């Protein structure tokens, strides 16, 4: 564990930071936003519930994995900063193939969010951490929301988020999205990660020296071939792994288009979509 980890966790409900009162739900008013936040996580961990709590929207939620299959966008304002928040389908991994999971992966990789909140299930933390660590491989700007704390307590589980944050090198905030518990702290922390006042040092799997050398050789080549590509390191690792899809994406020249597509709001929230299930 690197020693220079410096994470400041704001105190919940302290007198000087009346955080929740500064949250303004902005629904679908996302024309003028300052920052983009992505909501990622395993299926059925409560991303859409958190999304609704922040935006005031009524994104359809349901207790089964796979409810959200496209990305929905909404807005909230916190301490005077306007955020656009993107609710993504749940995914177990960034290597997966089904179409809903691809939507999530493409946005995390190429959407260049200012911060990614990885929502995890406190009652199944170990499995959830696999995705967290994959996200940490590709970006520094991560906050882990340990959701469903109420369920964990009911099951007699105690989650030490300080230990988690120390091990992961990014903030880990306990929340219960259903009741709103911990959301103010979460938003404070996200704001801190976005503006750089909270520094993160994500834990990464280093691999062998030859592997690191190979990655380091490929990264500048990819960056030169696709200017502005945000995750050359991840692409390099995938290429070394022989990922056919990534190879195809690179040779067919679809990467710039993929990056551009993430910046467009291809699915905005509307009541119609909520009803017909196309969140």
């Amino acid at each position: 564990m690197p020693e220079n980890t410096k994470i400041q966790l704001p105190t919940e409900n302290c007198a000087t930071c009346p955080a929740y009162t500064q949250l303004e739900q902005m629904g679908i008013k996302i024309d003028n936003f300052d920052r983009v936040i992505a909501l990622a996580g395993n299926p059925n961990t409560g991303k859409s519930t958190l999304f609704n709590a922040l935006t005031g929207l009524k994104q359809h939620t349901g207790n089964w994995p796979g409810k959200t299959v496209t990305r929905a966008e909404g807005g909230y304002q916190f301490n005077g900063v306007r955020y656009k928040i993107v609710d993504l389908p749940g995914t177990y991994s960034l290597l997966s193939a089904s179409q809903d999971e691809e939507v999530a992966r493409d946005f995390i990789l190429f959407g260049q969010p200012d911060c990614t909140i990885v929502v995890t299930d406190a009652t199944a933390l170990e499995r959830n951490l696999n995705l967290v660590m994959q996200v940490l491989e590709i970006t520094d700007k991560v906050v882990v929301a340990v959701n469903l704390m109420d369920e964990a307590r009911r099951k007699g589980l105690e989650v030490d988020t300080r230990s988690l944050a120390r091990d992961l090198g990014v903030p880990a905030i306990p929340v219960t999205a259903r009741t709103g518990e911990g959301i103010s702290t979460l938003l404070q922390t996200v704001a801190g990660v976005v503006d750089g006042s909270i520094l993160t040092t994500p834990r990464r799997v280093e691999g062998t020296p030859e592997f690191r050398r190979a990655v380091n050789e490929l990264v500048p080549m990819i960056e030169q071939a696709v200017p502005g590509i945000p995750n050359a390191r991840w692409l390099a690792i995938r290429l070394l792994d022989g990922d056919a899809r990534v190879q195809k994406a690179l040779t067919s020249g679809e990467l710039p288009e993929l990056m551009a597509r993430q910046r467009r709001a291809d699915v905005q929230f509307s009541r119609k979509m909520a009803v017909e299930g196309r969140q």
Partner: protein
Amino acid sequence: MESTEILQKAETLRAGLSTGFRDEIVKSLYSEAENIARRAVKTASDKKYDFDQKVDRLVTSPVFGLPIMLALLAAIIWLTVSGANVVSEAIAAVLFWLGDQGIALFQALNLPWWVTGFVWDGVYRGLAWVVSVMLPPMAIFFPAFTILEDLGYLPRVAFNLDWLYRKSGAHGKQALTMAMGFGCNAAGVVSTRIIDSPRERLIAILTNNFVPCNGRFPTLIMLATVFVAAGFSGFTSSIIAAATVVGVVLIGVAFTLFMSWLLTKTVLKGEASAFTLELPPYRVPNIGRILYTSLIDRTLFVLWRAMQTAAPAGAVIWVLANIPFGDSNLARAIADWLNPFGLLLGLDGVILLAYIIAIPANEIVVPTMMMVYLGAGMMIDGPSTNEAIRSLLIDGHGWSMLTAVNLMLFALLHNPCATTIITIYQETKSYKWATLSVVITLGTAFLVTFLTATVARLLGWA
């Protein structure tokens, strides 16, 4: 820098790496996750089986799983049927009374007959029918279904049905997409994105329409109540009607499985793929949110969509019925022309005309049909009670039990509504599959109704 050069470079570099480097990385990722989780999570209790597991043992048991599922489905449908019946009649009575007042008002104002007719007999009557037939069942079914969804029961359904789908060569998660289809087939088609095999996803898309959506439930409920359960009274009648609707739903599921199997054996050959399915913990449903989602978002929205198509459909029928054609009118002439084909299927020409006018939204088929009967000058007053509907159809227009049964089968099996067809095109990006989805369903509907009609006639039942 050429991208092919990068690929070549990657090849060379990979060759220089030790062979197991991928496994090493994955392994270290997993063991890290395990260590971190172990340090962060403390288990205070040592309960061996918690409540969730006990419930799951029961609802996913090989013996009780399916019966419990059927019982839940039957209970929801019975609630819908018995509750909707009374309310529908009451709403219809009020709305048709209002319509009569409107006509009286227009006549008192000395407006031309065609203004009165177009507004009140055409547009208004269409709306009144749709509201009274659709609103009550949806307002009961949607909240009941959403409670099951919020509890976490749906994945258990998928678990129970998995073996059936596997045998048909389809994906076990297709059960989830079918459950979504109960609400709306377009939503069901979009939800197939959770299936990662393209072959099985296509099967799920093409067969989703065999699950009756909420637009078609009111049709089934009305026919089951008015015809099948007609000879019974009170409680028995609601049980018979609910059992009929459950039967129709099961026939739909059977067709889904059969068509999946047929597709697997023909155009979409392949093996069912393996998948993992997470059974989430049971959660207490949030009643406030359920009421909002199911009543405001779903019920009122779907009703609004139906009203938007019912108003122009009512207008079209009124106009058709008031254009003279020969010694009759155009609506009647078209219905007469379609009649031989309709009779072949155990239906009639008016029903087929109603289906054609209602293609934009299946949910308005029964109202459209009633309006064609009425609008074509075949009857003057809007029947508001079940008794009146039955006598209009049986005595006035030669309906029999065969007509009612075949109309239910036709409603279950026929082509998707326009919204669903467009969604299928958007999801598959292929005119071929969108067309096939129509051909398969319509072909099945024609074939099945033709067969039942022929058999019933040969046996002397109709």
